[in-house]
């Protein structure tokens, strides 16, 4: 299993060349369908008629999606549009009222190995007594299995992953001693050790510094170039065309989805954000003026 050469992964390959790190299609053999041809027709993720409700109030209505493979995909929409809920419903973290989710043609529960997840940074307690390395190792727990201890091999793998996101020097820091950007990098490293084929990331750019944002998007592009599919809940409309290939415009329903070029239009954004976008525009304009530039 050779890695495609890329600037960030080459350093890792050098340090330990016979151990593949997040190789393209690292899927364990048992999870590939019996007929090898069939799987190329299965989308990384297909959602049929998904409806999700909290306390009987619908949050997502009739979501139908088929995501293409090997793309960087943004989910955008106003607050309360159900962006995080969509991801959580796919991952079985919130119950669906109705609908069906298939990951590479099979129910998610049978395909956990193929799916990586980066929750929102605020969703965990950063005072928790663990080191950055401990957190990254958690990405391997499924492979380690119940009751088996975390051995050297898994720590080495986590270390390589930290190296890849430029955090090797911080491996033994307790996580509360890291900045917001560094914490997000640790989460990214944890996703990388999962060696998944489709990743879901909930606002990986929230509250990070500019250098980290660049680093994260470069890593995501590397994953994409290796054939993985990356789905990102994203807030900054400005950077959507620059960062992403595909976009899902969401506001309780899927307003539009497809390649950024054809779907990310003023008209569709207007539909997604309703009257709110004009206010956003004004706010952005006010911000620019206040900045003096």
């Amino acid at each position, binding site marked *: 299993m050779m890695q495609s050469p890329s600037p960030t992964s080459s350093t890792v390959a050098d340090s330990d060349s016979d151990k593949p790190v997040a190789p393209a299609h690292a899927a364990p053999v048992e999870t590939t369908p019996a007929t090898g041809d069939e799987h190329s027709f299965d989308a990384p993720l297909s959602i049929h008629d998904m409806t999700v409700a909290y306390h009987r109030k619908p949050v997502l209505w009739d979501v139908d999606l088929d995501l293409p493979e090997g793309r960087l995909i943004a989910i955008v929409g106003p607050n309360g549009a159900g962006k995080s809920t969509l991801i959580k419903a796919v991952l079985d973290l919130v119950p669906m009222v109705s609908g069906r989710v298939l990951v590479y043609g099979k129910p998610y529960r049978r395909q956990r190995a193929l799916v990586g997840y980066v929750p929102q940074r605020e969703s965990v307690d950063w005072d928790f007594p663990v080191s950055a390395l401990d957190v990254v190792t958690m990405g391997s727990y499924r492979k380690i299995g119940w009751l088996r*201890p975390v051995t050297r091999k898994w720590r080495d793998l986590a270390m390589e992953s930290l190296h890849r996101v430029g955090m090797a020097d911080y491996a033994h820091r307790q996580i509360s001693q890291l900045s917001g950007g560094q914490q997000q990098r640790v989460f990214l490293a944890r996703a990388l050790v999962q060696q998944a084929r489709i990743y879901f990331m909930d606002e990986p750019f929230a509250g990070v510094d500019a250098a980290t944002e660049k680093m994260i998007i470069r890593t995501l592009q590397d994953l994409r170039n290796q054939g993985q599919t990356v789905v990102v809940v994203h807030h900054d409309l400005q950077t959507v065309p620059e960062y992403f290939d595909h976009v899902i415009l969401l506001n309780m329903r899927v307003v539009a989805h497809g390649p950024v070029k054809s779907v990310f239009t003023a008209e569709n954004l207007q539909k997604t954000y309703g009257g709110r976008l004009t206010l956003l525009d004004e706010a952005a304009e006010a911000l620019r003026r206040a900045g003096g530039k």
Partner: protein
Amino acid sequence: MLWTSFDTWIVVLGALSAMACALLGNFLVLRRMSMMGDAISHAVLPGLAVAFLVTDSRASLPMFVGAVIVGIITALLVQFLSRFGKVDEGASMGVVFTTLFALGLILIRRAADQVDLDVNCVLYGDLNYAAAAMVRIGPFRVPEAAVILGIVLTINLLFVVLFFKELRISSFDPELATTQGFNAGALHYVLMTLVAVTAVASFDVIGNILVVAMMVAPAAAAHLLTDRLGSMVVVSLIIAAISAAIGHVGATIVPQYLGFSGTSSAGAMAAATGLIFIAAVLFGPRRGVTSRMWHRLQLSLRIAQEDLLSGLYRQEERGVAKVPASGAPSLTQWLVRRRLLQQEAIERVDGHFALTPRGRKVASRLLRSHRLWETYLVDQAALRADQTHKTAEQLEHLTDAALQQRLALDIATPTHDPQGKMIPPE
């Protein structure tokens, strides 16, 4: 007073139950559900009462089973109320356990006519009785409670050691645990079951109050003192055991020396663990109050030192080379001068302080930062030249070599500041 084997058994019993409680307490504290221990250990009362009324005996096993079942029901009810009643989890615990405890009281009252099932015993336990009720195990005679608590502690230890990885991930990030195929919910209920088992096994020895204290205080103190889960668990066990020993000594021996009669050992054990927790808050190495005060003191001393150095440097620029060494300095001044003399940054020259070459080097670096900042603030932040001194005064202490370099690159005239004073070269 003599220390007898009876005292030893009291400490052993206290330590065993305290450690059993503290072990599970780590995960309650980390999951921010410390009060769950409180809730479950109180709510088991109706389970005891019903088991007694049904089986009409005080045999341990049915009572035990009844209490554990009610303990688990408590955990379920709390979850149910907070999820479907949209109530905050703390409030839902409060409602559930007080209601169940009250129900238990009523049931015991009804049963009390027939037999002595004592509510006081539930709240305070009876260490003296437990330490005296011996059974024979092989060649040894040990208190029955020690056997039971030993088994419970062993079960808890096995649970934590075997499921360490699973407990860590499901406490830190339950969602990730679930996506990894570890059923965080199942682990939660196993934990709650063990909390109920531990509470029931402990309360007639050390009482409900101490159970609650030991489930929270040792783990909370250990959390302040450590930054890895493994060391937190170990430290919490040590704190629990030490609290038991200190508590008994404090309750029996110390008061007698002072001319009082002994007091409740279990109560003193709870007080001891509380004191250890307070000590951890005050003296914890990183998060402790005193260590933070110490760091702040160090910082303000450093700033005062640097201010003296740059002051001397400015005077040299103006031709007044010295600061008089006479007069009574304030404590801070005295400390600052003493440290600078020790570092050979300043020296005494006929009754005055003057910079040594070493001190001058430090001072010129500070002045450079200061004047670079003044220039930068005028250039880039459009401040008036006379507004910049205060800000630059603060920033100079926080500017390292790398930042200094970037500052020099960012301004137009890296040789003179807005007032025309020379910026010392590197």
